[in-house]
């Protein structure tokens, strides 16, 4: 695959100089890092809103920035659809007015063409089209900002923590819209977040940023469980993600088949049999058992093999957030699942069970601890 994007950016910031360089052929790139790492500055540089940015930016064969040759393409000629954390809707226009703000450019040859009506439909904004934007809820505002960016004929979507200002339940409700956009409009995306789960769902490749520098890059499912990156991913709400198909749905629970013969029961109302879903469980929600337990109310027992045991670092209490200190991370290989599952237990429990790599282990998880994140 030829890279559709090349970026080599240097930008002096207050506390450090941002220097990143990547080439990617993946249509969905994630940028993950703690707040203040320089994530937004990268997006603003790509959008052309940072005049101090130096280096090279090439997207889809077009040069947007090449400092050595004095090329700086102005933002209006770059073709990005930028969705900032707070939406930044135009307060003097209604919902439709906002969505149509960038449609003039969309007529350009080669630009992604999204029919505004289709965008309103996909984002479920049809009924709100004439509403004043000041009367919208946080989730509605973000959907309008998404629609506006989509309808501007973008060559590249820049999503800057688009769910960042929303509370957790709302984030989970907006997430499917983002997935739907990716599927429906097939526009290259850079997704910035400090939420590991969102990045994993929305990007094929992730760049981990810390203090303006790349510290790692790779497939989200592999990178986030990496020994060095996991503490950061954990601070960003790491969850084990599993893909499967709903085989049975009744009332408040659904049975999801992860692979032939391996099924989990998930508390998830309104599921439909046959649907592809992604289910999630936090590492701290697993109970580990050396022998197959019986007589439990917990609905799920997954048998696996311990691949790795990560003891807490000596200075963990200073670096980790509250509750993470002193925890042992047990990495468990289950069947032929795409990624191992991570479970956290106390150091004391780890000693008592005498856990060791290579040993058989059973992961116990309540149906209530599994939740359906999205449907594919």
């Amino acid at each position, binding site marked *: 695959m030829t890279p559709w994007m090349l970026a080599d950016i240097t930008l002096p910031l207050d506390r450090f100089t941002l220097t990143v360089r990547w080439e990617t052929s993946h249509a969905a790139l994630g940028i993950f890092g703690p707040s203040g790492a320089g994530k937004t500055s990268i997006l603003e540089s790509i959008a052309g809103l940072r005049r101090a940015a130096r280096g090279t930016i090439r997207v889809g064969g077009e040069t947007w920035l090449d400092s050595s040759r004095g090329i700086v393409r102005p933002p209006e000629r*770059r073709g990005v659809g930028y969705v900032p954390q707070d939406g930044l809707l135009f307060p003097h226009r209604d919902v439709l007015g906002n969505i149509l703000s960038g449609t003039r450019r969309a007529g350009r040859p080669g630009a992604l063409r999204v029919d505004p009506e289709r965008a309103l439909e996909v984002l479920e904004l049809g009924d709100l089209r004439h509403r004043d934007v000041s009367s919208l809820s946080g989730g509605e505002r973000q959907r309008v900002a998404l629609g506006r960016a989509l309808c501007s004929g973008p060559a590249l979507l820049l999503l800057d923590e688009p769910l960042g200002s929303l509370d957790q339940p709302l984030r989970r409700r907006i997430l499917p819209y983002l997935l739907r956009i990716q599927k429906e409009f097939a526009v290259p995306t850079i997704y910035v977040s400090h939420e590991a789960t969102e990045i994993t769902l929305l990007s094929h490749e992730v760049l981990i940023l810390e203090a303006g520098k790349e510290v790692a890059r790779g497939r989200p499912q592999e990178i986030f469980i990496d020994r060095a990156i996991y503490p950061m991913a954990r601070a960003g709400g790491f969850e084990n993600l599993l893909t499967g198909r709903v085989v049975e749905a009744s009332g408040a629970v659904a049975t999801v088949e992860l692979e032939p013969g391996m099924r989990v029961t998930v508390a998830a109302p309104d599921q439909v049999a046959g649907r592809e879903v992604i289910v999630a469980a936090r590492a701290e929600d697993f109970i580990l058992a050396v022998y197959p337990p019986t007589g439990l109310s917990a609905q799920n027992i997954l048998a696996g093999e311990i691949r790795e045991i990560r003891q807490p670092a000596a200075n963990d209490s200073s670096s980790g957030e509250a509750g993470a200190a002193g925890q042992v991370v047990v990495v468990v290989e289950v069947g032929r699942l795409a990624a191992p599952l991570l479970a956290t237990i106390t150091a004391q429990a780890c000693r008592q069970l005498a856990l060791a790599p290579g040993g058989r282990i059973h992961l116990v998880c309540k149906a209530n601890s599994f939740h359906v994140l999205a449907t594919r």
Partner: protein
Amino acid sequence: MSPLLISLKVACWVTVLILPPGVLLGLLLARGDFRGKSLIETAATLPLVLPPTAVGYLVLRMLGRYGPLGEPSLGFDLDLLFTWKGAVLASCIMALPLVVRTARVAFEEVDPRLEGIARTLGLGRVRTFVEITLPLARRGLLAAAVLGFSRALGEFGATVIVAGSIPDRTQTLALAIFSDMQIGHDREAMTLVAVTVVLAFAAVFTVEILLRKRPRSA
């Protein structure tokens, strides 16, 4: 021409003439980042703090026979001294600081990130200004216009020096009140005061009404 009509004519002309440079200067001071910004800022504020008579006297000397803008220097007569146009010029200078400062605040209240977003959506600098900045700053700009108009309506010190107080030609309401009072025409003075009150009330009230409407564009 009655003092009322002269006043209205002068104030309207001042508003029309002062808005473009005032708004531009306000924008420059709100968004620009250049050398000598504070200098321009100070110069644009000067008429606000100087005695109006000092400003008037300076203008008089500039336009006078031996001034840099006088007939001998230019080779032609600008014909401003002791005309209603002179009153417009004097009031323009006196109103400039208020218009610039109000416009500046109006622009500063527009989130520059909204302008950035507009640029990413394909709007060039000019379109962004016309479609985003201007509508968002319109309340403040309207206030700037009304302040400029009101300042021109009330201008006395600089006007009396540059335009004199010639009845039916340059005698505005403010000048006429003073003149009537001096010659003991108290009833006439009081009538003119009443007229200014009505005028001022109408101007401020109009703005209140205009501002109450929610800004909206199709």
